[in-house]
């Protein structure tokens, strides 16, 4: 197992390097640069000011030189400075990471647990009304545009009913500490996490249901039934366990996207996370910051892919043996 993990890690580093180089050129291919954006914001900039900015950021150097400088920094785990915010990229990402992980992690847990439970229930009640209702609700949440779902949740639970805060990570200026602060953050988390979780839940419902129905038709399940095992036991021990592999695959992919996958929700709920940081960096052509976010999110995807592969070997002994 250790050898397997080490080999995968080496591969991951090479892939990460390729992704970084690809992203570097992709970002620079977009029209405009951070100096032009910042000069534009200044409102009264002239050519000398633009040149001053480009020199300060090293943008006056040829692109390959800029790439080499960037890679040399990355090699020492230095993600550079944000042009626009004048702060180290690592600090900006680090500051936002907890909020994003909290939101995406909670939404991920909601979607995975509810999705698998609802999918399993639907599969066991195939063709009945409850099966149709589960599928319909899951699809409804998935088909509704995410930002619309989010806004409607705010209108209902925040504006109309006044039950939950409609934006932010915590009550600004409240001075809460300890458990009171945890409770406050939890209240702010409910709407964005639930909205995002319900949105992604549909995929788990569909995959779990389809996979369980397929497994349920296989010979070993028929054998289990013939042996007289109770239906609940067959579903849990035999069908669900064998049907879970596609769910693990999907969960691995989604978990890898935890860092950058909640741009819309973070925007609507003013959640101070990485997704928004990335969007703002993109619109301002803050190259270093954008590349930094890409490096971190790519690393997360690679890491979760590795974890998924390891999980495969644990969940399904056949893979381990082969």
């Amino acid at each position: 197992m250790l050898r397997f993990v080490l080999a995968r890690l080496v591969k991951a580093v090479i892939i990460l390097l390729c992704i970084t180089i690809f992203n570097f050129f992709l970002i620079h291919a977009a029209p405009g640069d951070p100096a032009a954006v910042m000069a534009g914001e200044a409102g009264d900039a002239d050519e000398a000011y633009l040149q001053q900015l480009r020199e300060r950021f090293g943008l006056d150097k040829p692109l390959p030189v800029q790439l080499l400088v960037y890679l040399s920094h990355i090699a020492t785990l230095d993600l550079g400075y944000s042009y626009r915010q004048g702060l180290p990229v690592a600090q900006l990402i680090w500051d936002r990471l907890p909020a994003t992980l909290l939101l995406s992690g909670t939404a991920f847990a909601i979607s995975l647990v509810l999705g698998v439970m609802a999918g399993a229930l639907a599969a066991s009640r195939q063709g009945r009304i409850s099966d149709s209702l589960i599928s319909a609700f899951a699809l409804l949440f998935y088909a509704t545009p995410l930002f619309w779902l989010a806004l409607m949740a705010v209108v209902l639970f925040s504006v109309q009913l006044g039950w939950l805060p409609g934006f932010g990570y915590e009550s600004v200026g409240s001075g809460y500490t300890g458990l009171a602060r945890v409770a406050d953050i939890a209240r702010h988390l409910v709407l964005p996490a639930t909205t995002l979780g319900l949105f992604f839940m549909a995929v788990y419902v569909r995959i779990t249901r389809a996979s369980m129905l397929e497994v349920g038709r296989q010979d070993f399940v028929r054998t289990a039934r013939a042996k007289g095992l109770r239906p609940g036991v067959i579903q849990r021990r035999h069908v669900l366990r064998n049907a879970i592999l596609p769910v693990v695959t999907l969960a691995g992919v989604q978990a890898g996207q935890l860092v950058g996958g909640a741009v819309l929700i973070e925007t609507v709920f003013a959640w101070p996370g990485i997704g928004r940081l990335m969007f703002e960096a993109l619109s301002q052509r803050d190259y270093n910051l954008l590349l930094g976010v890409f490096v971190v999110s790519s690393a997360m995807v690679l890491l979760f892919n590795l974890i998924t592969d390891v999980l495969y070997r644990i969940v399904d002994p056949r893979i381990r043996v082969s």
Partner: protein
Amino acid sequence: MPRTLLIALAATLFASSALAQETPTPGGRADLVVQPEPPGLMLGLLTNAPVQLVAGQIYEGLLRYDENLQPLPSLAREWDVSEDGLTYTFRLQEGVTWHDGEPFTSADVLFSANDFLVETQSRHRNTMARVESVEAPDEHSVIFRLKEPFEPLIRSFAFWVMPMVPRHVYEGTDYATNPANDRPIGTGPFKFDNWNRGSSIRLVKNEDYYIEGKPYLDELFYHVIPDGASRAVAYETGEVDILPGGSVENFDVPRLSALDNTCVSDKGREFDSPLSWIWINNRTPPMDDVRFRQAIMYAMDRQFALDVLWNGLGKVATGPIAGTTPFHSEVEPQYPHDPDRARALLDEMGYDGTPLRLLPLPYGETWQRWAEAVRQNLQEVGIPVEIEASDVAGWNQRVSNWDYDLAFTFLFQNADPALGVERNYISSQIQQGNPWNNVEGYSNPRVDELFAEAATAFPAERRQALYDEVQAIVQEEVPVAWLLDLGFPTIYNCQFQDIITTANGLNDSMRDAWIRQ
């Protein structure tokens, strides 16, 4: 103007006058929206709108300005301009300290004007090119001596145009990387306390402020809420008290204005006087023909845009100088919505139906809808238009490189035509790479002469005559298609009083703000 907005504005005016004599109550906090999140708060390095909104409470200039752009005391308590217009003498307030406790003196003014801002701001460099010297005869006096009269100088001492920066903190350091940029130190009524990036900025009352009793509020919170609809909701739920102009989409303004205990003010933008227009690329046919440009003016229904897209706030632009900027004159010809006249001009010049590319301003839904309305207007008179959307960086690049036919924009007038208008029309400002100069490529030697003469003429009456002439020429030649003097209404909880007391509005008025109990 929609009825709800009229009522809200009238109620606001009535409330203001009825309470004018009330004694301000100290205490409380104000929650405002800031959008987008400022990149930093060091006003000597960054001057864009969100920075001004927050940092305007931390830093101060020598003067403030009333709604007629007349100077008011700020860090200077008195000032005098010599009869020949060459010497500006300021007497500074006494007992002013920086937020770290050091005294503010004329040495700080010298450092700010001669060193810091010359290095960091192109606007200031241009102003100082007209200044012979800045002297400090004593700790509380400063004299600006000019090479030639430059009347706009008196409107160059606002908190964001010439902010005072602390010499003892910045002298001999790299200004861009000085650690104090993260914890800005000014002389203003509020001190920087805390910034949760992506969430909020907290300023607290400066207990040592040099005006006894001010500021009244204890705390200011600036909330970062990136989505327009969410900002509107934050106001509706009472989580923010004040929505600065432009915080919400225009179509949300009437609804929010009609909420209980809500006031609306269109004041406080007189210094900026944002004027919108469409750049017309004068370099290429058919836009190089003045008749084509005039046809565009006649084709556009600007009253519709004002009434429908801007809720009646603002006014139809009457030329290159906004109505609230000094030296504005309404000269002929004006361009009412007259499609027949537009068609006649197009026929006369033999326009062949060449399609045009229109760049909307990537600042939200209102601008997108406005571009669609203009496209419809132009298509009605036979000019096919294709809208080419982009993001801010893409728009900047396209406009800077003159890669467009028509492009929406709006610019600030900066309180004087010499500071915020001439850059858009004079030949020397045709410089590729900058989206805020003479992007349209208009060139008229007489206009160049008039603008140059008007900038240095003295006193103001002489300048007026020169600007009248330049407005008449430009109005005839239509280098750009003027749209509206924009109105960006501030929406706020009516319990808040005196939140806009100057021509820079919320940006430098919070020292006067208080909450009616």
